[in-house]
């Protein structure tokens, strides 16, 4: 009897292993260059792109085709919402994730969920979008699920440099039918201005950026490979978290004291952290930044959300690190 059951089990396991006969999705291409209907860089910036079909390869290697620029977009990440509004596509956003809070108009758009990674697919489908804009915080499973419901999804990969962020702006511009040349040029100009001033700097202050400190002796900070680390360096500071290994490590209080940063940035000021509270923390009083009172709150969203506000973040950091250069 047992043997019969064993044989049946093995048979069924083999059969189940054959898997359902589902049509394979498009085979992933290697990181291919973007196929694009290029508009010649024009001196007259008011030329809008002609409404032609758009074919792009997204961050997951999927080919995404739109017959015409999308007029109804659902954004699944706060960074995507910021990008959409920044390039002038705000009126085309019909749905956004729960955490999209910038600009203020975004909060008026219908929410489709998003906390703990759970979105309401029913809501997304009911909004009938031409395009769903996903980001790296969305899982490939979610993309697959929405694809299976017949929606067009574009997965926008996180940029690893500010220049890649411009590329993302261009991509979203093409998807929604907006010319992003002006926006990108103005951002480039601002970044170039910061770069020029920072190039003249002789000393770079050491900086401790606190992302969050649920335990005051092991706060989270930006490490190598994170955007925060990149921005701090570009703004003319030295991130003490740069010597650690992970991108979002916990740094021990001992290490902070040993590195003795001259500036402390409170990325968790959105959640109630204040300079006064930091001064009263046990063991922190010997740090240079605490002694000189150089503890500044900063909106972490402009440092961590991969959108055009990264340039705001860069400027703010540069002003904090080198106030004499940015009067």
């Amino acid at each position, binding site marked *: 009897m047992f043997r019969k059951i064993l044989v049946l089990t093995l048979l069924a396991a083999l059969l189940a292993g054959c898997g359902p006969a*589902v049509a394979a999705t498009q085979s992933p291409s290697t990181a291919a260059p973007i196929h694009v209907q290029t508009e010649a860089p024009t001196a007259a910036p008011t030329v809008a792109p002609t409404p032609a079909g758009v074919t792009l390869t997204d961050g997951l290697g999927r080919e995404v085709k739109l017959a015409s620029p999308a007029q109804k977009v659902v954004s699944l990440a706060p960074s995507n919402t910021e990008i959409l509004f920044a390039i002038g596509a705000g009126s085309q956003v019909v749905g956004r994730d729960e955490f999209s809070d910038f600009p203020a108009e975004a909060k008026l758009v219908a929410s489709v969920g998003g*906390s703990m990674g759970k979105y309401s697919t*029913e809501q997304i489908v009911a909004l009938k979008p031409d395009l769903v804009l996903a980001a790296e915080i969305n899982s490939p499973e979610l993309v697959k*699920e929405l694809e299976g419901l017949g929606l067009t999804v574009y997965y926008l990969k996180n940029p690893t440099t500010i220049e890649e962020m411009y590329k993302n702006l261009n991509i979203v511009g093409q998807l929604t039918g907006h010319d992003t040349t002006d926006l990108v040029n103005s951002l480039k100009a601002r970044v170039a201005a910061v770069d020029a001033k920072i190039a003249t700097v002789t000393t770079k202050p050491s900086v401790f950026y606190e992302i969050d400190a649920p335990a005051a002796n092991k706060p989270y900070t930006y490490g190598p490979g994170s955007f925060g680390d990149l921005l701090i360096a570009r703004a003319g500071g030295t991130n003490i978290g740069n010597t650690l290994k992970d991108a979002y490590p916990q740094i021990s209080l001992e290490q902070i004291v040993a590195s003795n940063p001259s500036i402390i940035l409170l990325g968790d000021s959105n959640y109630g952290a204040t300079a006064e509270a930091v001064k009263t923390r046990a063991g922190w009083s010997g740090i240079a930044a605490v002694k000189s009172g150089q503890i500044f709150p900063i909106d972490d969203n402009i440092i961590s959300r991969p959108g055009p506000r990264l340039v705001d973040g860069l400027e703010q950091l540069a002003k904090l690190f080198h106030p004499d250069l940015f009067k």
Partner: protein
Amino acid sequence: MKPTPFFLVLLALGLALILSLAIGSVFLSPVELWDALRGQGIQTAMQILWDIRLPRTVLVALTGAALGGSGAAYQGLFRNPLADPFLIGVASGAGLGAVIAMSVKWPYSFWGLMAIPMAAFVAALLTVFIVYFLARVGQTVPTTNLILAGVAFSSFATSLTSFLMLRSTGEVRRALGWLLGGASQSGWTAIIAMTPYLIIGLGILTLSGHALNLLQFGDDQAQQLGLNVGRAKTVMLIAASLATAAAVAFSGIIGFIGLIVPHVMRLWFGADYRRLLPLSIIGGAIALLVSDVIARVVLAPQEIPVGIVTALAGAPFFLWVLRRTKNQGFW
């Protein structure tokens, strides 16, 4: 004529299925629903009903059935009212397998996405295997050893999972979402992949009612009553673990169903495992369906992970049932 337990429970299942199809984060009126059912509704309503709610309802019902059935089996096998399907490490093993699989950059393709549930499934079964052999003493597997080995290995796997999640910065959100549970895959792939294991696992368990009844007298007594205890326990363990592993691999880790549903069924309908097992299977489906509806609706459009709802709703409900039947010696 007094309605039999099966009639009542099947009626409740029917109601739960209808509830799950009718309610969701987008409100569809009864007229729209009826039209969509007949294939004549507006496109959005049809898509919501057929492509989103129907596969989800089936997946949730199957998962609940697997958890309820294996929960009853584990409680009978271990003769312990606190036993649940995750006792010997299926959940923690699956979690570890899934998180390890998530740290690999699979290509975005059908098999690339199936890699996660497959890894979770294999890891879950491997865990049961390891725990079983850790607990073996000669030819027998004493239940105490199984529980101890299971608890120890579970802790190990869970802490390893947490460590991996902390180290991998990109995947934490995805891993957390998976671990908290909930039917995240719409579409029929998960259902097709799960069903063979559920049929085998739950099928064997339903036929093992008599053996479980005998085991309640203790291993020695059962042996003397003619049951091949070692073999019966092994078979039932494999069957229950297969069903649980398949459920967990696609729906994540959903607690309380496997623990509470068998107890409720026992309180209402008695402890005869020939009846208790099928009732727990159906009862598990009902419980998870109702929890899933609540998870979808309470904070719409925000969805809560269903594991939170089962914990919040299941415990008070169980306490209420317990109080109502406090005169019966139920265990």
